[in-house]
């Protein structure tokens, strides 16, 4: 990415821990990334890797026992972690909006869809109820919900899953936010509906040059919409690069493992690669590199010392001691047909 582009959000060494009865869960433990104006950053990882907690920490939506204990969230040059709760209210929804995975639990079941959208409009723009409702209908029309006037008076359970997610997008876009965080927005949807929703989201963002942080476990979705990608494992970013680099020249064993273990439509695969073992329990992370028990390149050093996120080349950062070995593996051609 060129430097001409405006840096919108910068996360530096973010640490969010949960203080539970069983011990401290380091859900997010050193996450760094940047988001530029107009670009899409994809955060990829499996369940429990801290993707969602990262999103919640940016907006400071976490309650006890979760607490952000370190790092900086610099949005438009200001650290959000230092803002007062009142200042945050002015930012949430207006400048940074979020779309959740499960539209049914994110929407309030006893309020009409129209009212829920107008709430944010009334608060941020100080407009009357009538005007806000009218604007909500317009927004519902914009997200291509048929018969928006009637739909605005309906309750969430009366809408289909895809429609609910459209309503969520209308709500998130209501105040023209400059940054949208989407936390697995299409995971609960069918593929044909997913295609509709992604299309709509990207079109709306392009309209006002907004940025997007897309959180997902689906590498296919990421390949389609992201500009840059952060791969997360056990609370840390393990690899960070632009899309092409991640897919063609991955340097972290975990990224490589993910790419070769998914069945895909574009290549014939004889047998899927396997990342052995399971995601470690966050209460008892292994020492050294957190991926070492599952890594086929692991050495003694990996078990003792934790690697830091090192710049390999401009815009490509990796957290691994054995980058040379992975490079050799990738050079051999890790996927036929790509």
């Amino acid at each position, binding site marked *: 990415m060129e430097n001409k582009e405006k840096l919108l959000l910068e996360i530096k060494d973010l640490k969010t821990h949960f203080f539970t009865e069983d011990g401290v869960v380091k859900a997010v433990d050193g996450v760094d990334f940047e988001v530029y104006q107009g670009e899409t950053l994809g955060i990829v990882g*499996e*369940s429990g890797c801290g993707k969602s907690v990262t999103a919640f920490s940016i907006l400071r939506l976490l309650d006890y026992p979760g607490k952000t204990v370190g790092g900086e969230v610099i949005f438009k040059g200001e650290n959000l972690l230092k803002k007062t709760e009142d200042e945050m209210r002015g930012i949430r929804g207006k400048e940074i909006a979020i779309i959740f995975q499960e539209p049914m639990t994110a929407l309030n079941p006893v309020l009409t869809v129209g009212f829920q959208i107008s709430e944010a409009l009334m608060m941020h723009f100080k407009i009357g109820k009538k005007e806000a409702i009218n604007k909500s209908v317009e927004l519902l029309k914009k997200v291509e919900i*048929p018969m928006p006037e009637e739909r605005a008076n309906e309750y969430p359970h009366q809408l*289909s899953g*895809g*429609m609910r997610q459209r309503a969520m997008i209308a709500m998130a876009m209501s105040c023209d936010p400059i940054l949208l965080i989407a936390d697995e927005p299409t995971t609960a949807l*069918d*593929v*044909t*509906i*997913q*295609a*509709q929703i*992604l*299309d709509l989201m990207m079109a709306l963002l392009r309209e006002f040059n907004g940025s997007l942080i897309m959180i997902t*476990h*689906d*590498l*296919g*979705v*990421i*390949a*389609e919409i992201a500009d840059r990608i952060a791969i997360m494992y056990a609370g840390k970013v393990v690899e960070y690069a632009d*899309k*092409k680099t991640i*897919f063609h020249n991955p340097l972290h064993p975990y990224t490589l*493992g*993910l*790419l070769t*273990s*998914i*069945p*895909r*439509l*574009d290549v014939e*695969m004889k*047998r*899927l*690669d*396997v*990342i*052995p073992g*399971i*995601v470690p329990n966050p209460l008892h992370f292994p020492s050294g590199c957190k991926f070492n028990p*599952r890594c086929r390149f692991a050495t003694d050093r990996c078990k003792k010392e934790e690697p830091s996120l090192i710049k390999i080349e401009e815009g490509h950062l990796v957290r691994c001691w054995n980058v040379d070995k992975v490079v050799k593996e990738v050079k051999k051609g890790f996927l036929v047909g*790509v």
Partner: protein
Amino acid sequence: MANSLLQVKNLVKFFPIKKGVFRKTVGWIQAVDDVSFEIYEGETLGLVGESGCGKTTTALTILRLEEPTKGQVIFDGRDVVKMKKADLRKERKNMQIIFQDPYSSLDPRMKIKDIIAEGILTHNLLKVRERYKRVGELLEKVGIPAENMDSFPHEFSGGQRQRIGIARALALEPKIIMCDEAVSALDVSIRSQIINLLKDLQKEFNLTYLFIAHDLSVIKYISDRVVVMYLGKIVEIADKKELFTNTMHPYTQALISAVPVPNPDYKKERIILKGDVPSPANPPTGCRFHPRCSKVMKICSEIEPKLTEAKEGHFCACHLYNEK
């Protein structure tokens, strides 16, 4: 060609919609409507479609976990639908199922050795000591150390629980296993472990799978032949390779084009379907896909297309191909 192991003929399953104080039936959910296909011995038949298209209901009615409204299910030459309870119970030994959610499909109060041994006990196959020896073997087969057999389900991760579900299905040495979204709830790295395990077990025990999934990439990887369903009907059946290279039905085309491919250089034309899947309580007339179809013709809203063989082994229910 291999022998046909299971034939489903004109299977219908309607669920009543009840309303009011007297629970009067006011309509029917047409979950599975006139579905016919066969499964050959040793193959994996993929059944794909979006939520609500009747994939799961099809599997459940085949096992008679749901009573079919109409139709025949011929398994090993006998009609499962007409069987008496006792015969059915015996026959179920040969037909097992693996469920989607490894959390709700295992009884939290039972030790896993008892979960796996339950079928063996029901069918009175082995004495106690041999039974648990067999459980141990099964657990090792699916990659869980046998010494863990006294643990409870909550002590295992999602992937391990799915392995336990597989061991349970294997316990009776079935001929066919229905895998109902068996890998959908799992993380990427765990999913490939389970898919590989299913493939290995198939080879070792000459198993036949009816593999139900909504994820086309998984279906493409694991299946030999594929059945595509839409709103209770089969729209296309073909050999895997044929289906993905020579897609006929407009719905299948749209479905394949909607799958995101993890390759930034992969270019394809995307067909975006308009609207939502209609309700199975009130499906459209004629072809059920016609309100969303990009190639809709006049006839489509009037006459329902029949599933016909357009090419050898390639069946399609669409008026585009029926005229010629």
